[in-house]
Every structure is written in C-alpha cells, then in structure tokens.
C-alpha cells in the first residue's frame, strides 16, 4: 500500500516536471517516471525455455539501448502464464488492473495470447506479442494497441507449401499436427501454398493437443505412402515425433518437412533422427549476415547461451519498442504517436529487415532450412517479404 502511494506521488511529480519539461526538456527526461513493462511469459511447463529466451532477447535490446527506453528507466512486472489458457485472463488482469503496466509483452502460447488480447483491447494497454502466431491477433481481433513482432501461424506454413509446390516429384502430401489453433492455421497456410502447384493433400491427420501417442498415425502415413509429410509439433512433442518417425523406419523413405518449430531447440535431444528434415521459418542458423553475427555474439557473451528464433523475437520486440518510445521521449501515455512511430519503423533485425503490416504483423522473408548436424542450416528463401493470410488481413478493420 505504501509503495503504491509512493508511486502515485512520484507520478504526480513526474507530470509536474513534464509540464516544466516543455521549457527544460533535459530536466524532465532525467526525472521521468519509470516505464512499467509487464512480462507475461511461460516460465514453467513445456514452453519455459521459450519464455526465458524471449525475456533474454528483450533485455539484450534494452541493454544495447543503454538500459533505458526513450530516456526512462524500466521497471519489470513478471507473471508466469504456464501456457495455461484457463488462467490467462486472471494473469493478464493482474498486470493490467493491479500493477497498471504501460506495456505488456506476451506470450508464447496462442490460446493464452488470444485471451490476453481480450483484456488489452478493452484496457488499451500497449501489447507486444513476441511469439504466439494466432491468426486473429492481427486479423479479426486486430487493434491499434496490439502489435506482433514474431510471425503469424499461416506464414511459415505457406512458405513450406510454396517450396513443395515447386518440386515436380512431390505429388501427394500427408499433413499431421495437433488439433488446436496453431496447428490448424499452419496446415491452412501449407495448403494455401501447396495449392500453387499440381499436387494434392492425400490425408490430414490430427492429434489432440498435447497428445504424443503418434504410433497409430505413423501407421496411417506408412500405409498412405505420400511423397512427403508436412508436420507441426513443438518442444517435447516435436522431439518425440522426430524420434518416432525415424523409429518407424519412415525417415529415409518419406521426406519429412514442416514449419521451423519442428526442429528448433530440439536438435540436441534428437540427434541423428532429425538429419535432413526440411522446414520453413522466418529465421535460420548460419544466415551469416553481419547483423546476425553481431547479435549472436552479443547474446552468447551476455547469457553464455546460443540464441534461437525466440531470442530474436524478444530482441526485435525490444528494438521496436525502443524506436517507438524514443519518438515520444519515453512518454508511454502518448499512445497514438507511440504506435504511429512503431508503424513507421523498419526493424533492423538479425533475421533481416522487416516492418509491420497495416494489421501489425511482420512483413518478412520466409527461409528454407535443412537440418545438418546440430543446426537448421539456411538453404534458401521460400517467399520474399511475405505478408499475412489475405483472409485474415481482410478481417482486420484498422489501418
């Protein structure tokens, strides 16, 4: 209670100074109130490593900006969302209504992110989504204050689809994934892309999320004998799928493809079972651009860890927010100008330059990658400057 009162006084002081700051801008900047950033990320559960990578990336961007955004100190409020949609509303409420944060960064799980959007749309809190690719976030439920720095589920699926459509020897494909929003949207993207060629989808196989009993479905794949398989699983589920696929003797007979999440962060655990698997994503190992090398070095130095796509997304969130807050001198209450500045920013990201679409989703290159050793090696560009699913974009009413 005392703390809250203190903050309020601080705030009054800050506003008074901000008024004075019209005359003495330097003074106001030095004395400005802290920017309150709420981190709602998974710190436990299957997606915990992803949450940590995102926070690391975000903090690296803050560190490179001199520990301040728009000249102001940053205060973090953390909530573990456990990747649990059922608890999402209570959790986001805590940040928005109890801690009254200026910016929310979150989250990984699509269902949790969708629940967060309901609250941030109502409160108007600036909400940056550093991973969850759920289509409605930048589709039917898009809003001026909701910004995504990662990808939409449709994008990498579409990239893989286009790549396979161009290969003459691939005439039939079986898709397999979890039956939930992310899985469905990635398969839709894949089908949209694959439809550019003459091939057909032989079969769509689904599992309840997060079920990992693949055996009966692998039997189906073996019986259907397609020219390729398109799969989306993530984390522990992906590792298990890759191992089971190899164990069922399918690895060398039916090429396995997917969105990048299938092989990201699991190569250590899986070993030889993933060799040669081809995936599409907005990031790859050994991109070997100067920007990427700089980032990888800085990240490895700071955290004694190799960065992954999630770290890049967290980092980009920090870059974009820094650019926006710089334009408003760290005054997060000037939301309109803040968002306008973010919309105009071209993010110089390790993944390559990208900017926001009208619906606030990144317009970005989708790369093809092939597993070789412990790396998802860059093997080409599937689609250049890809925007989101036209259906989703049409549903967005802003911009």
């Amino acid at each position, binding site marked *: 209670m005392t703390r809250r009162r203190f903050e309020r006084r601080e705030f009054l002081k800050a506003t008074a100074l901000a008024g004075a700051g019209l005359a003495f801008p330097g003074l106001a900047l030095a004395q400005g109130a802290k920017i309150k950033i709420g981190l709602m990320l998974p710190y436990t559960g*299957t997606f915990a490593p992803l949450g940590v990578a995102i926070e690391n990336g975000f903090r690296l961007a803050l560190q490179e900006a001199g520990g301040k955004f728009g000249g102001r100190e940053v205060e973090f409020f953390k909530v573990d969302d456990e990747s649990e949609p059922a608890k999402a509303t209570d959790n986001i409420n805590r940040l928005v209504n109890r801690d009254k944060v200026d910016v929310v960064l979150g989250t990984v799980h699509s269902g949790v992110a969708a629940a967060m959007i309901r609250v941030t749309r109502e409160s108007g809190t600036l909400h940056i989504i550093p991973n969850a690719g759920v289509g409605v976030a930048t589709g039917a439920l898009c809003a001026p204050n909701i910004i995504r720095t990662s990808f939409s589920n449709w994008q990498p699926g579409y990239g893989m689809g286009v790549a396979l459509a161009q290969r003459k020897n691939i005439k039939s494909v079986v898709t397999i994934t979890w039956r939930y929003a992310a899985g469905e949207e990635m398969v839709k993207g894949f089908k949209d892309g694959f439809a550019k060629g003459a091939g057909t989808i032989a079969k769509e196989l*689904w599992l309840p999320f997060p079920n990992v009993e693949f055996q009966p479905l692998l039997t*189906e794949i073996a*019986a259907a004998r397609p020219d390729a398989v398109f799969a989306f699983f993530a984390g522990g589920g992906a590792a298990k799928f890759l191992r089971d696929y190899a164990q069922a003797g399918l690895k060398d007979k039916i090429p396995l493809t997917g969105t990048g999440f299938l092989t990201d962060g699991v190569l250590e655990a899986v070993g030889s079972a993933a060799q040669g698997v081809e995936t599409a994503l907005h990031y790859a190992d050994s991109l070997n651009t100067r920007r990427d090398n700089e980032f990888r070095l800085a990240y490895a130095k700071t955290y004694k860890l190799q960065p992954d796509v999630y770290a890049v997304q967290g980092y980009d969130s920090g870059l974009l927010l820094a650019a926006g807050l710089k334009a408003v001198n760290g005054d997060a209450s000037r939301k309109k100008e803040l968002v306008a500045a973010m919309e105009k920013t071209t993010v110089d990201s390790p993944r390559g330059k990208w900017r926001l679409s009208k619906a606030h989703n990144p317009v970005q290159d989708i790369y093809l990658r092939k597993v070789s050793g412990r790396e998802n090696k860059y093997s080409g560009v599937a689609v250049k400057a890809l925007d989101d699913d036209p259906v989703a974009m049409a549903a967005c009413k802003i911009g």
Partner: protein
Amino acid sequence: MDFHTFLIQLLNGVQYGLLLFLVSSGLTLVFGIMGIINVAHGSFYMIGAYLAWSLTGGLGSFWIALPAGIAITLVIGLLLEVLVIRKLYDRDHLYQVLLTYGLILIFEELRSMIWGDDVRGVPIPEVLSASFPLTETQSYPVYRLWISAVCLVVAGLMVWVIQKTRLGMIIRAGSANREMVQSLGIDVRLVYRLVFATGITLAALAGMIASPVSAVFPGMGNQVLIVCFVVIVIGGMGSVKGAMLASLLIGLVDTFGKVLHLEIAGVKLLPELSSMTVYLLMAIVLLWRPEGVFGRRP
C-alpha cells in the same frame, strides 16, 4: 484399410489396452480389498515415468533403473499408507477422494521441484530397439511387443498370487470380512500396507515401461487416471477379470476410433470425436449393467 495396417492397429490397440490394465488393476485391487478410492493413483504412473527417466540417466541403464524404480515406489507406498492412507479406512469416500486429490497437487509440485517441468524422453533400450518389417514402409517396433508381454506376465502373476497362494487367501478373506481374519491372529494392517504399496507400484511400473514410447511429461498421470476410472466402471469395481476385459475393449475402441473415418449425414464423427468413444462405451455399459460387467450387484 488393408490387412497389414489393420494388423498393426490391432497390435497398437491391444498394447494400449494391456498397459491400461496394468495401471487400473492396481486401482481396482486397492479398492476391492481395502475399500479405498485413491485418486492419486495416476500420479504414480507419472512418478514411475520420471523415475525411469532420471534413473536411466543416473545409473546408465534402463535395466537397472527398472528394479530400482520399483523398490523406490514400494517404499513410497508403504510410507504413504502409514502416514495418511490408514486414517481413511473408516472415512466416507468423499474424504478419500479429497485427501488423495490433495496428494495429487503435492506430488505434481514435488515433481516440478525435483525434476522440473520439461518434457523428457527415455531412449528405447538397445536390445529392443529393432522393428519387424511388414511391408516396404510398414513395420512394428519390438519394444511395443515387449510392453505387451510384460503386462501379460504381471497379470498372470497377479491371478496366481490371489488364487493360489496363502497370501492371496488372506487377502481375499480380509476383503470379505476384516474382523474375522483379524481374530484368526493375522495382522490385516500389514496385509493392507502391502496391498496398497503393490497397487501403486503397478501404476509406477506401467509408467516406467511406457516412458520410452509415451514421453515423460507433467500431468501425464491425470489423463491415465480418468481412463482407469472408465475401465473400472465398465469392468466392475474390484474385479481383476473385469479390468482386463474393459482395458482391452477401451484400447481397441480408442485406437480404431482415432484412425477410422465415420461420417453420418455429412457430420464427421470419427476421428473428430475419437476421445469421446470410450465414454460412450461407458454410458452404454451403465445402462445395461450399472455395477459393471463383472461387478457384484449391490
């Protein structure tokens, strides 16, 4: 569906059913003999799987991890009976459910503190890692056949102990009339302690042998627990024979429900509603015999 696919799916269904039997037999024994409903039974399936993962890593071999894991769960079972379960013998089922539900939360958090929340994998032991080739693309893993074999051996052992040994005789007598056995100078409390420890060890054993094929993840016990309830409702509470029949039935219904396609009047029913099939089976049995196929009529 061609013959080979059918054969493989049949084997998948039987294997799942047998594993289910291993878990649910422990639950039904503890209820049948002690009158205790242990909702935390599924937690031991999870604990078994995590033990298999950490012991295989620590001791270097799945074959050493297995007996070590069994010993550890037996000890946990004995301790648990002494500390809390025995306080429940005279209490209503409601309190048994609640207390053991509290245990689920405790076990789940202890698991999180000891082993973390990540999904883990146990490698399939080298000796059993081969597959039988059936056609050019289809094969069946040896390890899954081994799982089925273990379950069948345990089932046989269980029937033998209960039907043919002195211990089994005491157990059967103790479940029918506790006071009578007590008055014969036999320590029923010790028998109960043993039965409870064995019951949860069966669940843990199932978790251990399933870990290489099912992955090891938080909350994995809860999924199994509820299917076990369905097994017991169908088979009849306390009946090992019923548990075997119901487990196999559920294994087959679940497996084929996932791969068969059924459409009625344009509405896709299977595999979309596959996770509901076992519950429908239960509803049908309830209408026909509310006490289960092999249950005693009240």
